């Protein structure tokens, strides 16, 4: 399932929390590392699976936010707007769609199978 109709969700942002769609992340199950040179990437180690992933800094920030209880979509949107101020809402929502889908495909976040 693609993240459903993000724009419409943005309209629901006060009501619908991401926890309806994805399980929250347990950070204790991960270890991460980034170089002091800050090359824009973070290495993430999944303690349960033993897999190592490389994430862009933005994706990693979203991953960290997913660890917060009931993180709302507007927090993610705001975060992305801070980082990508020139992007319009549609591009931002697509970016979030893709990032969340990517994190899910890596097994870093888990979908609940909930569909609008």
């Amino acid at each position: 399932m693609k993240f459903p109709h993000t724009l419409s969700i943005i309209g629901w942002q006060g009501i619908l929390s991401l926890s309806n769609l994805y399980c929250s992340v347990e950070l204790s199950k991960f270890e991460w590392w980034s170089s002091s040179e800050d090359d824009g990437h973070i290495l993430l180690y999944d303690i349960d699976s033993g897999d190592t992933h490389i994430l862009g800094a933005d994706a990693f920030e979203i991953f960290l936010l997913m660890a917060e209880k009931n993180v709302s979509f507007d927090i993610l949107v705001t975060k992305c707007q801070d980082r990508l101020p020139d992007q319009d809402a549609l591009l931002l929502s697509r970016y979030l769609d893709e990032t969340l889908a990517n994190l899910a495909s890596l097994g870093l976040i888990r979908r609940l199978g909930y569909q609008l």
Partner: protein
Amino acid sequence: MKVAELSKKLVLDLLSRGELTLQLSPFVVRFNSNVPAIARDIQILYADFDVLPNTDFADFHVELRFVFGIRRWLSPQVQFFFDGRPSFSNLPVAQAFPTLEWGLNWCVAAHSHQYLVIHAAVIERDGVTVLLPAPPGAGKSTLCAALIHRGWRLLSDELALFDFSSGLVFGMARPVSLKNRSIDIIRRFSPNSVLTTPVMTESKGLVALMKPPSGSVMRVIEPARPNWIILPKFEADSASLLVKHSPARTFLLIAEQSFNYHVHGQNGFKAVAALVDQCRCAQFTYSDLDDAIEVFSDLDSRLGK
């Protein structure tokens, strides 16, 4: 006593009795073989290594034996044994010495979990220690062979043994494996280098092994702290070019090129992080060995701060 001090007959005798015990720091290896051809190669390529009493503890017991049967006389083959167990396919007797070397590499890579074992060459000079991780065919061994003929110390051509607690790398200073065109390139680059007779192999093409420099073998017990990770890449007709490489991508490459990263789990992750943290990371493209030597003589200024 050094291997060079043993007569060929004595090497043969010790081998046939399974009593040739060599200090290949940080390990001790006991060899057993009924293949006379490898006695000559051991005598030449391991000339500077210490022979230990047969009573000493050995980490690895390796054997290379003729395969029995009619094939023994028609088309002789050899088989590698580790701790008495046959390992790998039989190979033609002409490949006996490379088979022994590959088998020994496997023993170390598959069983030395006290280290993070990385497929990388390691060289050192005046406190500058460079790890050269690379997939096969990248030009790692050619570059390594050239550098050790120009004053760099060889720690390893193939296996870097990263110690978790100290952050130091051990190497065994064993023979350097050269393949295909690199054999003639190194012969021309360093006419005094001592190489085995090249043999054609199915898996790697033409293979020859080069004797490690005596100075490197004498210092084999000294580990070194890596401060550079350089990804070598041979590219025909290219100028020598040293450029920064993403530490995160370097991390992934080290993990991929490690034989036991997955075995160590979270500790493996921490070890690679610690290794990359203590190093500058770069990619080095080259075609001319003299140019390459020049770049390596002043890595800091070539890459910039």
